[in-house]
């Protein structure tokens, strides 16, 4: 694998991390396997595309996507998920249904064409990295991945809300019995997870393109990341993202017809020895 391919793997990993970090937070704390996470990613991409095209600002596109998808998340949580609280199977089925509806709504609004979110001029072109030239935008994605990791790490480990989220993963009932309205923590975490999916949509929409069914692809990768890393674990999601990102690139380069197997084969092997993922804990 040359350094260009290595960087491809790492930048894809950065995107996966942004998407999967939201997924794992929601999975870990709320115990919801949110199968609409991919649809929220795609929706965020479309919102970012429209906003960036209209305003000419990529930054505004990211902001609009995060806020817009968080708003959809609020409706989803308060309007639908609240009726199936604690019923894991129903939550999963409901989120799958929501994914289908969101995709069709997106198809009505944006059509079936493929879009690419316009990037700012500053990020046009390539710069020399290691022994190759590499697109600036993809380096920006790598930087964003690292930034999101650092910010989430600080939030989780150095704020009271972060302590409540971690405690909620351990034992939500005891958090409630300590005087904290855990529902509020749940909603905030869910909105944060949705906003991260939206952010990922814009980041990915600028180099992977947006099209119907792009959501399913990113969802499958995110699931692999979370399953490998262990649910609810931020560091696990980072490790999982790097593994999946690199494996995906290697698979495409060396065994193009087996690209999926190269990811899911090792994942299955890992689960045989660590059923809860690398950093997952039984709750």
């Amino acid at each position, binding site marked *: 694998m040359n350094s260009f391919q290595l960087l491809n793997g790492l930048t894809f990993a950065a995107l996966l991390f942004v998407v999967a970090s939201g997924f794992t937070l929601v999975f870990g704390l709320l115990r919801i396997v949110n199968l609409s996470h991919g649809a929220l990613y795609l929706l965020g991409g479309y919102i970012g595309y429209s906003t960036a095209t209209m305003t000419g600002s990529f930054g505004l596109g990211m902001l609009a996507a995060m806020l817009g998808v968080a708003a959809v998340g609020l409706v989803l949580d308060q309007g639908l998920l609240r009726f199936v609280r604690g019923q894991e199977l129903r939550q999963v089925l409901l989120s799958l249904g929501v994914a289908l509806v969101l995709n069709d709504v997106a198809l009505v609004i944006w059509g079936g064409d493929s879009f690419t979110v316009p990037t700012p001029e500053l990020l046009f072109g390539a710069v020399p990295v290691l022994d190759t030239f590499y697109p600036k935008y993809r380096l920006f994605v790598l930087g964003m991945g690292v930034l999101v990791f650092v910010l989430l790490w600080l939030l989780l480990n150095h704020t009271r809300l972060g302590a409540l989220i971690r405690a909620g993963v*351990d034992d939500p009932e005891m958090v409630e019995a*300590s005087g*904290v309205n855990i529902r509020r923590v749940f909603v905030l975490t869910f909105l944060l997870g949705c906003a991260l999916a939206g952010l990922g949509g814009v980041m990915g929409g600028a180099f992977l393109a947006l099209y119907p069914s792009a959501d399913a692809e990113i969802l499958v990768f995110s699931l692999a990341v979370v399953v490998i890393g262990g649910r609810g674990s931020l560091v696990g999601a980072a490790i999982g993202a790097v593994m999946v990102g690199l494996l995906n690139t290697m698979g495409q380069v060396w065994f193009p017809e087996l690209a999926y197997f190269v990811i899911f084969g090792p994942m299955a092997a890992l689960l045989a020895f660590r059923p809860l993922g690398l950093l997952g804990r039984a709750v």
Partner: protein
Amino acid sequence: MLQVEDIQAYYGEAHIVQGASLTVNAGEVVALLGRNGMGKTTLIRAIMGMAPPQLRSGRVRWQGQDLVGLKPHEIAARRIAIVPQGRRLFPSLTVVEHLTMVKSARATEGWTVERVFGLFPRLAERKGHRGNQLSGGERQMLAIGRALMLDPELILMDEPSEGLAPAMVQRVEEIVLDLKRTGLAILMVEQNLYSALTTADRIYVLETGRMVMETTGAAANADEAPLRRHLGI
């Protein structure tokens, strides 16, 4: 202050608490005794609003207000705290975070991190450790400290001496009496008859979901025989 009136509590179809009543007055230590599986923990969970159990009838009155139907955090906000069975510390949180999750580190009113560390100097030495890296005694201290951060008027303690070395059991008894001196009321589930006899002002015995005996600590200390008969020891 707390009146539990004719509580009927179920786990699914299992009728665990069958019409139990009890009273805790301000500043009083009340022990709830009974063998395993008699419904003691279920009763404590019911008071705290934890589900399961499901309450089908009965009232839990606290300072004149009915608590039934309130969520645990709403009950905690009314200054009832719990030290649950098994302590239930958070493996992901440090000692300090167990305290500051309840009340901000900046708070100066009532119980603060400093005050808890003053009561349990051992915890101050361990403040960066996580919940699962503490010894049994330290865990119990932290579980009590976490409850105190709510500035409670009543603490529900579920088997505070369970799994502790004898010296630590004695230490917990001293803590209970110290807290009582600050005006706190404590409702304590106990398996350890001697801990109950040492600390309790009044004692209830629960048997298959019903109160079968009520006595004072003084009377029980004077004659242990009736208590022993009910407890089968």
